[in-house]
């Protein structure tokens, strides 16, 4: 799929709330499909899906420019789709095909799209945090008004790179927005087993920067919060830490059924499902007519099946790809 389509997808999310809704539906369907493919044994390796966190993804994509570089984690399909990547380049990567965004040699944890501003996603916890600060340094040194966004999980807030990255960004007043996707779990451990405080946003005080709690289930609020923090960053106001409270519907990775979750927890969060509540809002605002939601779902499903066919038609990554791009030449 050409550049044009990807940029178009990005613009849609940036400009149109209904398009955001559609993208959230796409992310949910995509992740469900990926889980299914793994369950069928059709994919090698592991994967980390982001059902339930769709509002965070579209919030970032809607508020950021393609020239604002984003770092994110192995749980990156949703953010990739939100930023405008097509289902086929992500699925292709997950399935190890040439059509994949990295040619199929990297796998689910490693997505990348330079034009859309997505740096290679990070499979080492915390690593993307200072890297985002580094991208912000480029904007600051060059005097552009671009900013950078570093996305990471609640578990990552306990690792050294978090502390060092936020401290550096603060002391240099860098144009970067740190977004903690607090989905309540790091792997199989609830946050309260690993983190002695309630709100990770409070850690911003250690660096003298604003720390703001955001309802990560509401795409209007996530767009708003990211947009405001980016505006601060662009105008020289320095970094912000946004803690987006959200919930991971699936297990941590392919093999995890999330049986450790306390009873009723999932259900409580599902009451505020970001897609359902957003649909209701759009409907009540008259932006989604009766039947429109079903149409969107069908459209998304068809799009996904087309993507899957394109991926299946694409050859597996080649031995040449394995030897390419080790060293760049001048």
């Amino acid at each position, binding site marked *: 799929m050409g550049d044009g389509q990807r940029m178009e997808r990005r613009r849609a999310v940036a400009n149109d709330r209904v398009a955001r809704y559609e993208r959230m539906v796409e992310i949910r369907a995509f992740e469900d499909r990926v889980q299914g493919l793994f369950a069928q044994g059709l994919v090698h390796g592991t994967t980390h899906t982001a059902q339930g966190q769709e509002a965070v993804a579209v919030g970032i994509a809607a508020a950021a420019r393609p020239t604002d570089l984003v770092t994110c984690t192995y749980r990156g399909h949703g953010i990739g789709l939100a930023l405008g990547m097509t289902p086929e380049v992500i699925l292709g990567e997950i399935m190890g095909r040439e059509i994949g965004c990295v040619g199929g040699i990297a*796998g689910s944890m490693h997505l990348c799209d330079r034009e859309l501003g997505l740096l290679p996603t990070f499979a080492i916890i915390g690593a993307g945090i200072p890297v985002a600060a580094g991208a912000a340094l480029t904007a600051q040194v060059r005097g552009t008004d671009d900013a950078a966004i570093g996305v990471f999980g609640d578990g990552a807030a306990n*690792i050294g790179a978090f502390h060092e990255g936020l401290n550096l960004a603060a002391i240099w007043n860098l144009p970067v927005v740190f977004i903690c996707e607090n989905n309540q779990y790091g792997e199989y451990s609830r946050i309260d087993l690993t983190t002695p405080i309630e709100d990770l946003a409070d850690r911003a005080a250690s660096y003298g920067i604003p720390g703001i709690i955001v309802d990560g289930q509401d795409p209007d609020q996530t767009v708003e919060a990211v947009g405001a923090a980016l505006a601060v960053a662009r105008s020289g106001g320095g970094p912000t830490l946004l803690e987006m409270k959200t919930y991971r519907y699936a297990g941590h990775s392919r093999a995890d059924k999330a049986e450790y979750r306390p009873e009723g927890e999932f259900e409580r969060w599902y009451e505020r499902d970001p897609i359902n509540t957003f649909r209701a809002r759009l409907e009540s605002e008259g932006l989604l007519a009766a039947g429109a939601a079903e149409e969107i779902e069908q459209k998304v499903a068809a799009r996904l099946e087309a993507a899957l066919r394109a991926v299946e038609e694409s050859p597996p990554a080649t031995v040449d790809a394995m030897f390419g791009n080790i060293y760049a030449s001048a």
Partner: protein
Amino acid sequence: MVRMRMNQAVAAALADEMREDPDVVVFGEDVAVAGGPFKTSDGLLEEFGPSRVRDTPISEMGFLGMAVGAAASGLRPVAEIMFIEFLGVALDMVVTEAGKFHFLSRGAFTCPMTVRASIGAGLGFGCQHSQTMENWMSHAPGLKMVMLSGPQSAYGLLRSAIRDPNPVVVLEPRALYGGRGQVTTGADGILPLGEARRVREGEAVTVVSAGAMVKVALAAAESSDDWSAEVIDLQTLIPWDRDGVVSAVRRTGRLVIVEESPYTSGWGTEIAAHVGARLFGELRAPVLRITCPDVPVPFGRELEQRYMPNPGYVTDQIDQLLATGRTPDPWWVGEGRRA
């Protein structure tokens, strides 16, 4: 003898050490409640309780540092690093602190900690979760390092590692966790550190391997009728069994190393350089290192398998070595790439 998977053998070794020594404690990410991401500590929390079996936050530097302090003050901590790459955020604690603690205390403190880390390719985890990285720890006097090759090796070497008064890094090939084998447990099942193990007798060539490659070397050796290969599981990478390996190679006159890691500067490099110099004039062929190419580990079933030495390739390389008396090019050179 009990038949078990390698991950069960790891858990059994941990449990037996914990039973015998109340100072043994286990911690790492998701090792307690979940029994370990690879189920290598299953059942420990239930048997030994939350004081001795603990889940940590994601903070490798922090919990390896705790292991150093706990070891110096009398415990025998066993810390799990889920994937060896994560040592990249905490290597200081292993190499620069633990490895020098005894030296820096003029012998007053010891640092009997064990760092277990899963390694290797084959499961489709991509290039940041599939390496072996043994040479991060191989140039650091004061450390020991072992590599497991199956259930018995896991049980026996891990118990020795925990008992050793020095910091020991235990490399556990992830792809072997699910493999089953007969295991002698108890005192008889303990394998000493520092000794290589001959797993097959042979005349024409000595094949030294470790970890997941032992099986590959063995399969290669068994597949040829033209020559017979002695196969050695190095077991302890640091300090390695120089005398054992040298005397084995002296017998056959030929050394082949089979490694699951890139060509440049893997563990086998030291074996090759040392033996090559010590047996100069006695070797009947150059030392052959059969390795992966110098590239990041690729994702994708076929590519990943291609990346690693496999039995057919090993046999073929040895065939060529014996036929020509020269080291054959690795497969990727045939495809126009750098050796």
